């Protein structure tokens, strides 16, 4: 009941896991990471597929389909992260850094902009600060003001952290 209400207010809950998670064996080996998409509602939208240079986000039979991913083809490039109007795509690179670290590539459209080297607050799906992570890089794939922030996070928090805030 509680989780249902949380989901209905825009928070993905474990009991309603509609995020498609990459297969772990591939994920742990894939340099540059794989995409995680949290788009649980059928809406008429397909720019994630249109923006994907490798065809990893498969063509939509019907525009309201939920995205389907061929993880073998995903290169973790982050173009969908910056293109998705719902900011629902995230890239997680489990091969990055030390054993217990990972790199997340998160969409960011707020000011001030983070800079590489900054320490930023990492927020969970409810906006609670759960970690302080270091910004490794900031890119702007489409030159349209939507940034992709690469931030280092603990490996066990990649399914918790979904945004950053400059502090």
């Amino acid at each position: 009941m509680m989780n249902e209400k949380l989901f209905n207010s825009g928070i993905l809950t474990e009991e309603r896991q509609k995020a498609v998670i990459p297969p772990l064996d591939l994920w742990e080996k894939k340099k540059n990471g794989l995409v995680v998409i949290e788009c649980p509602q059928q809406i008429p939208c397909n720019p994630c597929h249109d923006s994907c240079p490798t065809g990893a986000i498969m063509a939509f039979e019907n525009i309201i389909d939920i995205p389907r991913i061929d993880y073998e083809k995903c290169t973790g490039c982050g173009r969908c992260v910056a293109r998705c109007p719902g900011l629902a795509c995230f890239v997680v690179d489990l091969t990055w850094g030390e054993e217990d670290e990972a790199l997340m590539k998160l969409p960011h459209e707020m000011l001030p902009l983070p800079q590489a080297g900054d320490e930023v607050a990492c927020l969970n799906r409810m906006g609670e600060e759960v970690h302080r992570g270091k910004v490794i890089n900031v890119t702007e794939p489409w030159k349209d003001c939507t940034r992709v922030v690469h931030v280092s996070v603990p490996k066990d928090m990649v399914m918790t952290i979904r945004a950053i805030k400059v502090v």
Partner: protein
Amino acid sequence: MKTTEILVVGGGPAGLSAAIEAASLGCDVTLMDSDLKLGGQLIKQTHKFFGSREEFAGTRGFEIGNLLFDEVEKYKKEGKLEIFSNTTVTGYYKEDGIVSYTIGEETYDLIKPRRIVMATGAQEKRIAFRNNDLPGVYGAGAVQTLMNVYGVAPGEKVLMIGAGNIGLIVSYQLMQAGVKVAGVVEAMPRIGGYWVHAAKIRRLGVPVYLQHTITEALGDKVIEGAVIQEIDNTFNLVGEPIKVDCDTICMAIGLTPTCELLWSAGCEMKFVPQLCGYVARRDAMMRTSHPDIWVAGDAAGIEEASAAMVEGRIAGLAAAASLKPEGCQMLKDKSAEYLKRLENLRAGETGAKIRCGLEQVCCECWG
């Protein structure tokens, strides 16, 4: 008296699209808009649009507006399209089909069009609560105009009423403008807008109060806070009142079609809750029961800008083809594609309400 082949009333996404299509068939088109700048709600939309490539999905709304302006400019240069901004259409006289309008507050004049596309958009609804006439209680459209057209922050801390797409998106835009959002209040047990729009503001820490309503704005001369309270499934107040710290209240309750001119013209109207008010009955090409009048966009039922643009294109094309027999083939070819695009935009659970509403007002053809 001034005459025109096609008069388009309203220069938002639907009206601009209608004018462009009508001009493309070689008609002389006149477009009137009450605002100083064309574009309607499009010019305030800083978020990226949904849909497919044909609807410029992934492009920000105001940039889609710029693409339409480029097309408009082309037909203006060719002398096919005349634009009147700051011009309010004030009446339609069905005895002789004459339209009255005012330019600014000084000039009053008449025009006789052969065909009209009504793309008058919508008006915001408001709800009643104590002190809702205090300065600082805004509609979401006004907040967007201040913020995204004139670059003025409406306040420092905003309480948003309504978690439809407008409430969710404007909350996000406020945060981008550096304004705090104290929370989003929604009477229903779930957000009404796209789930991903809610997720965006949730992960930045904005609370969403489902099954809550605003009961009072606090303050004497300015807003010093608001009181919200939980409601049950039959909208009765339950629980304790909660005081929220804010200096601005933004209402995104919903919209209702602007349809006075359609009533004046004697178009067959019907109240359709799913389309948010009275709307004109129309055929698939957006022609109303009045043979010279077409309708498009929010004036035809509340939807979003992508659908409004496609409807505008259909209405503009169909109105033009009724004057240019050589345009009928073009109408046939293009409208099939446009109708397919509308069907896609209205597919799935999020389009169910619209589909149900349209079933009640669409007829095959007017015989």
